[in-house]
């Protein structure tokens, strides 16, 4: 319990107002400010870190491996580590299921194809160093940055190896490495809090305590995609306001995401560009 009954009541009353009065004077579609850094892990193909102003922090590393395509059930493997939670806890398992499911179903695997027999397999390792609110959108935004800046070595051998027994060979010059795809924008998750008739983007931990329900939508290629799920965002199930949703809010949430999420993607892309420019001078994260 992080809020007293009086605090909860006060916060609830402010959030059900039309428009909602959020702590920190955010508007209902505004994300919390974040700070990000990409490409700082020398041994990874791609890496990113996002820090929020409430101390939440997530680091993601993307590594690749050349595999025989036929022998793999999927070309993406996700692992999530959250300190304080066991790997087989419901909390971590659900984060892992959501992210794996999104990437397996929506990631264009043809970008990972090397030859007719071989592909890259991506291993996405997430560490949530600290978090207060439900960390799925934090992880997903970080994975966006990490995947977007992932550079894979340039293939120098023949693409068509159906006839020949040849293993792929790569250029040993790291400068020749290329991004997964120049226009590729990985899919992301958006968390929305439902309270009264309001939908709040990116609820903070205090807001989560009084929410009536939570929605998780995914966004890819400028529109809302599946999966869409609802869940209790507060980790303790003793959330006394938790109740069912009005069906209209689902439609409304899709419209809102379609309206505001392109701005989030744009902000992340700008972030990467700025990070690239600063790259020569400052290549460490602290």
């Amino acid at each position, binding site marked *: 319990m992080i809020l007293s009954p009086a605090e909860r009541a006060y916060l609830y009353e402010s959030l059900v107002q039309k428009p909602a009065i959020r702590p920190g004077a955010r508007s209902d579609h505004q994300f919390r400010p974040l700070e990000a850094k990409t490409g700082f892990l020398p041994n990874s193909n791609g890496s990113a870190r996002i820090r929020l102003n409430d101390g939440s922090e997530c680091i993601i590393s993307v590594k690749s491996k050349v595999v025989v395509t036929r022998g793999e059930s999927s070309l993406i493997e996700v692992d999530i580590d959250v300190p304080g939670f066991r790997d087989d806890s419901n909390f971590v398992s659900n984060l892992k299921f959501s992210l794996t499911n999104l990437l397996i179903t929506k990631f264009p695997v043809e970008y990972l194809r090397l030859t007719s027999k071989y592909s890259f397999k991506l291993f996405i390792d997430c560490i949530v160093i600290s978090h207060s609110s439900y960390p799925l959108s934090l992880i997903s935004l970080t994975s966006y940055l990490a995947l977007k800046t992932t550079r894979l070595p340039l293939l120098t051998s023949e693409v068509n190896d159906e006839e020949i027994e040849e293993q792929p060979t790569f250029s040993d010059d790291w400068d020749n490495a290329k991004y997964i795809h120049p226009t590729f924008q990985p899919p992301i998750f958006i968390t929305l809090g439902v309270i009264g008739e309001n939908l709040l983007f990116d609820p903070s931990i205090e807001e989560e305590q009084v929410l009536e329900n939570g929605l998780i939508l995914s966004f890819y290629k400028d529109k809302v995609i599946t999966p869409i*799920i609802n869940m209790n965002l507060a980790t303790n199930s003793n959330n006394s306001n938790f109740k069912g949703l009005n069906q209209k809010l689902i439609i409304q949430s899709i419209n809102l995401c379609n309206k505001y999420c392109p701005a989030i993607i744009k902000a992340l892309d700008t972030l990467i560009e700025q990070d690239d420019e600063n790259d020569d001078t400052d290549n460490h994260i602290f």
Partner: protein
Amino acid sequence: MDRRRLLGPLNTVIPNIGISSEINGSKSTPQTGISSSSSSNKNDIENFFLKTGIIENANGSAYLEVGNNVIEVSVFGPRPIRGSFIDRASFSVECKFLPYISQPGDELFNTNNQFNNSNSNTNANGRTGLTTIEHKISSYVETALLPSIILEKYPKSTFDVFVTIVATETPTYNSNEKLMRLTNWIVNCASVALVDANVEVKDIVTSGIVKSNKSGDIIIDPRGQIEDEQNEQDEQDDQNEENVLGVASFMNLNNDQLVGIWVEGGDIDQDLVTKVINGCNDMSKKIRANINSFLIDSLQ
């Protein structure tokens, strides 16, 4: 059973209301063999077999068979908790497949088990925990049932719902569809188990599943590949891409409040999502009508 301090009067009369005219649903008529799924109307809901009170040492239990799925739910609670005072009951759901059953999507999601026998539920420490898929089902069911239970009535207590999946569909379904279909019926079964445990609920949660086909029409209660016989060729490639699958759970007497939603699959827009929700709502109402008459019957 004396589980609470305040008991109602012993000689209560249960009002005889709400008996539906079409009482001859699929309830409590044990089916022999598997129901034929080649029904002419594709919007019919598959017959299911439901029975309550099969587990004696649980406070409530329900058993459900639909198609080849066999689900058993037991409810334990309200049980007292140790430790500090809480003013509302806590509620947890745990869902397990029997160890010999292959879990839908096993090869994609349960990657932690790769060092062990792929179907055993033991992790590297040799402990038995839930797999990622079991956690996913558990959390959907928990989210869907949580708003219906009047937790304020049970301070200092806990409810534990244990779901056991005894059998699942044959592999003709794609794994997502199998998983979501299973989840759908688990919610229905668990709500009946809660009623059987005499837990105070706002309404009985029922849920429905729909699938869209390529033309954007909605098929209620999809059963594998029945609906697209004509193009079996490209079915394999298209099935994951094009079709949208949705499970949604409702409290039908409570303004059709949506308590759980899970949409997967291809491209969506507002219209399609509206159709998915409405389709699920229709199916949940039909299941609810069946459950209602089953419960009324079991009182008499």
